[in-house]
């Protein structure tokens, strides 16, 4: 697992909430189906374990293909609410990176700034 993308508490709670919102934005039944598929692919929603962003990305790609990006974009948007505008704009400007990479970068910044503590 890419260490930059590992999320431990206290950031963990924020990321899980943002993921819930991102999945929920698709509609409740679809969100539940995705949770079920992700769990069956080994992605854990167990709050005692660190949040695995790489696992989420891979699982969503397997289930949704290209539309995995939509969930990642929603996750990025939700998390960016906790960051400074300048940081968010700087990361958004990294046009060559995938949204998954941008979320990782955002998490790095959030960890640096002590967000969630």
């Amino acid at each position, binding site marked *: 697992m890419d260490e930059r993308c590992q999320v431990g508490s206290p950031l963990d709670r924020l990321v899980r909430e943002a993921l819930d919102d991102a999945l929920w934005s698709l*509609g409740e039944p*679809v969100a539940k189906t995705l949770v079920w598929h992700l769990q069956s692919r080994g992605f854990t929603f167990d709050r005692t374990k660190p949040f695995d962003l790489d696992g989420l990305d*891979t699982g969503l*790609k397997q289930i949704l293909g290209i539309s995995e990006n939509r969930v990642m974009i929603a996750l990025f948007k939700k998390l960016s609410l906790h960051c400074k505008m300048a940081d968010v704009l700087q990361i958004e400007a990294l046009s060559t990176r995938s949204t998954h990479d941008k979320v990782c970068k955002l998490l790095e910044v959030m960890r640096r700034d002590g967000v969630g503590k």
Partner: protein
Amino acid sequence: MAISRKDNDRKQISAAPLSLKNERRKLTMILLDAIAVTNAFLLVAPTPELRSISGNLSAPITAGAAMVLGALVVREQGIKGLFGRAYVALAVGITLWTIAEVIWAYNAIALDIAVPFPSIADALWLVGYIPFAYYMFTTSSAVYGVHPRKKATFIVSLAVAAFSGLYMASLLSASQLTGPDAAQAITITILYPVLDSIIVVPAVLSLLNSGHGELTSIPWIFISWILTVVADGIFGYTIVTNTSESLQLLPDLIYNCAYLFMAAGIYWHYRYFVASNKKLDEIWRKAHA
């Protein structure tokens, strides 16, 4: 680095514990069987009259199947969230089109009008484009990554616009419609390809982006839309050249395919995307305990 990650993803996809490959294959076979059975009635009908009746009856039946499935999805899924709203729009669209098909069939069979065009059914078909457009644009963007600022969007839009322009020009030049209703008939005949060409762009782009993801690899409903556009194109041409009575078979066959593809797509969503049973509620609760 990028390649090795891609390969890794591919390995994991093929080893996915919950492969829907068999389910996809099963649904494809059922769909092909349904298309064969429905269209067989049209192809083996011994007389043109029976063929016409079969064509006029099969369209409302196939569209009705999609409509029932659409209503089931809305009941299970509700109206919230991206998919909730999109499928409500799809259900409204297919309901309008089913009613239009029933009106057409009534005019053709009960009132014995060979080609009941234009009629009140056309108003329903045309209004139906609004909810269909909502569904197509919303889901093509969310599920198949279609984006207006991408190069592919520009190229496909340009190609569709050029083809539509040529098609409409050929409709006007080939038109043999005369009489007091001719202007109205030509206007409606032109309106269909205009609206079709708008919605076919996200459908084609979605098809080009398909093939990924256990749940999303076959864009059933977008294929259905492309088939509808092809059928509309042929039908429009037969209308303006006054050949629709003799050449009705081909668009009828394609319309049946289109409606059945749509039914298959809605069924796929209902069966594999929409989950609201107790077991999944339990999993959701555990995941968020």
